[in-house]
């Protein structure tokens, strides 16, 4: 459990973890806290925060409870963040692993492919993809995954390239293990830590991307997300600042928490402690 010790010695990481757990709990408990869902028009529109009992953060343009929206929005932001990151990993890890492991033409091909995706400005590509597929939770998640896998592929490739020259991998070759088996059971498990660090940061980026798409009106209209709330409130930002302020803060906190955790993980995985000799 030295890993946990190292992680928890990073104050920021612990704060991040607590924040994230809180967000996750809120997301999980959303149906319990606000069983009516976030769309119900429950009060007069534009209630100012902290003025009405039961509506601590006020109401929006249609008289919907902002708190309910935030609570339910947490589900979507986390879901999109997690699923798109998983999908990006599913594309990036195998591609990067094969490229790094086999080298040569496989590598050349895979890297051309990756570069190709990195050459298209990613947000523009996401916009086009969502516009083509029409904005639904699925298409948004897919679009985010499609634009965010290239860094994963590059990272995994670099890791695998360095790992495959390690002596224990060569030993596995000499033991007559198959390439696939070596890649899966010898190489990849040792590349897990940087992938986890990157994944935690990608979840954060995905949440930002989702909210940016929503801001441009490319969100799923059937799902309450934080990005949607800001996008919907930006036209009234002057008269009802809280409508875009609180979701913005929610995004900020969640993204911040994920970044803090990512840094904590990074530090915990790579203890720079023992470097000097004699």
């Amino acid at each position: 459990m030295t890993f946990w010790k190292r992680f928890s010695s990073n104050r920021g990481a612990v704060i991040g973890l607590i924040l994230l757990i809180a967000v996750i709990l809120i997301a999980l408990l959303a149906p319990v806290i606000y069983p009516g869902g976030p769309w119900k028009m429950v009060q007069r529109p534009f209630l100012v925060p902290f003025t009405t009992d039961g509506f601590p953060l006020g109401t929006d343009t249609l008289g919907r409870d902002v708190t309910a929206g935030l609570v339910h929005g947490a589900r979507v932001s986390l879901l999109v963040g997690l699923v798109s990151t998983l999908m990006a990993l599913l594309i990036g890890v195998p591609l990067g692993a094969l490229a790094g492991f086999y080298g040569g033409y496989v590598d050349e091909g895979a890297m051309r492919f990756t570069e190709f995706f990195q050459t298209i400005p990613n947000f523009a590509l996401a916009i086009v993809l969502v516009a083509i597929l029409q904005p639904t939770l699925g298409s948004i998640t897919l679009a985010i995954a499609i634009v965010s896998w290239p860094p994963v592929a590059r990272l995994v490739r670099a890791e695998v390239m360095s790992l495959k020259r390690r002596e224990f991998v060569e030993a596995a070759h000499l033991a007559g293990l198959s390439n696939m088996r070596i890649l899966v059971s010898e190489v990849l498990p040792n590349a897990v830590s940087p992938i986890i660090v990157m994944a935690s940061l990608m979840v954060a980026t995905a949440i930002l991307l989702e909210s940016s798409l929503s801001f441009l009106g490319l969100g799923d209209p059937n799902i309450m997300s934080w990005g949607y709330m800001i996008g919907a409130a930006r036209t009234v930002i002057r008269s009802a600042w809280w409508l875009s302020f609180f979701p913005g803060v929610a995004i900020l906190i969640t993204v911040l928490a994920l970044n803090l955790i990512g840094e904590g993980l990074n530090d915990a995985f790579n203890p720079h402690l023992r470097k000097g000799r004699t």
Partner: protein
Amino acid sequence: MKFLKTTTFLIAAGLAQPLIAQEAGGRLDIVVQPEPPSLMLGLVQNGPTQLVAGDIYESLLRYNTDLEPQPSLAKSWEVSEDGLTYTFQLQEGVTWHDGEPFTAEDVVFSADVFLRETHARLRSSLAYVDTIEAPDDTTVVFTLKTPFGPFINAFEVGTMPMIPKHLYEGTDFANNEMNATPIGTGPFKFESWEKGSFIHLVKNEDYYLENKPYLDEIYYRVIPDAASRAVAFETGEVDVLPGGSVENWDVPRLTEMDNTCSTSKGWEFFAPHAWMWLNNREGPTSDVRFRQAVMYAMDRDFVRDVVWNGFGTVATGPVSSKTNFYSDDVTIYDHDPDKARALLDEMGYDGEPVRILPLPYGETWQRWAEAVRQNLQEVGIEVEIDSTDVAGWNEKTAQWDYDMAFTYLYQYGDPALGTSRNYVEAQIEKGSPWNNVEGYRNPELDLKWEAAATSASAEERQELYNEIQKEIVDDVPVAWLLEIEFPTIHNCNVQDLVTTAIGVNDGLRDAWIKQ
């Protein structure tokens, strides 16, 4: 209520106006949203194009806010008893912006050649026209095949803009190079267009009306974000926010500012009428009881008050109360969820989900769809909002791939021009989002629509339209929502901005700035 007061004030100002001498000079900055694709009004007639090109081009007539014809390029006109001959006397001494004289030949070319090829909406009116002739340089005669009541409303600038014959005759209209530098007879000339930023018009010094226009120059400013447009008005960067250029929620805040005026006049000719197409062909929406239930389920007053900030009127049927031949003798659908539930029970609605296709024109429409979804869910209808962009919306409605679709259409002052196209069977045709998209079929009513259009007697037309409205409202072919209003917000120093039924779209020849 604040808004009403300002209007009254405006009217008072308008009455007092003769006492004040109009001042010449100055520059006006107006928001145009979105950026128009082109300024050639003969080829493109969408809102932004007309807003700008309305200063450059003119037609034979204008219409006051009671929809009565007023002189424009025609100084006088005459309609024969039988309603078949329309004779126009043109203004004298009118020249195109390039100095060529404007003559009756230009009118014949515009209506009979150019617009007949390029202008789909005018084409359907021109179907009633037999010949267009120019007996002399200042006289034009339109001869109709049958009487066509609304024909007198077809001379608005967006419907029949005058195109210079000497520049276009014999060319490929769509690819004529002159399209980039439009030439009209209007009070302002095209100067430059910084794409993505602004369009600059300057005063036409040779305008045929003495002393007009008053303004030296107009900048139409392209500002893509609604909030930024509001900021632009607040900081004084722009003087005029035409209807719809800021979100409704910003309107009260802006109008409360010092020296800010607003008016909802200037939309009488268009009288934008909003409804949801209900797909009459299939699914729950093909059942008239379901459609009635939808009418009862919706809280349209709430939407008017909250989403539209109090602007607009709840629609009673297919014809706008601002349009000629409106009748209120119809079934009134109040917000009555119980009645809606009863109707759904009666039809045996099985919870089959329906999709709502909102109009992709900004937050207001999005909120509206959300409010309707909420209303419908409350009476037990399963609803999902289909998301889309402009192109997708066009595609889905034109291909009838929807259950309920928001839209709004202009009435053009007469049910025969703006209303009937959405309800007669002849107008059921895939590929266009501007016809009978819902697929409503009622052969009996089709006859009445036709008879009303081709009658020369106003009384007879009123009679027929009353019957049509009474009957169609019970069928609920579409779910009528609101007669929407787009208040024009402007700096109070800008005077006489809105003087006709198409408001700022109609050339700012009368507008002036109080120094």
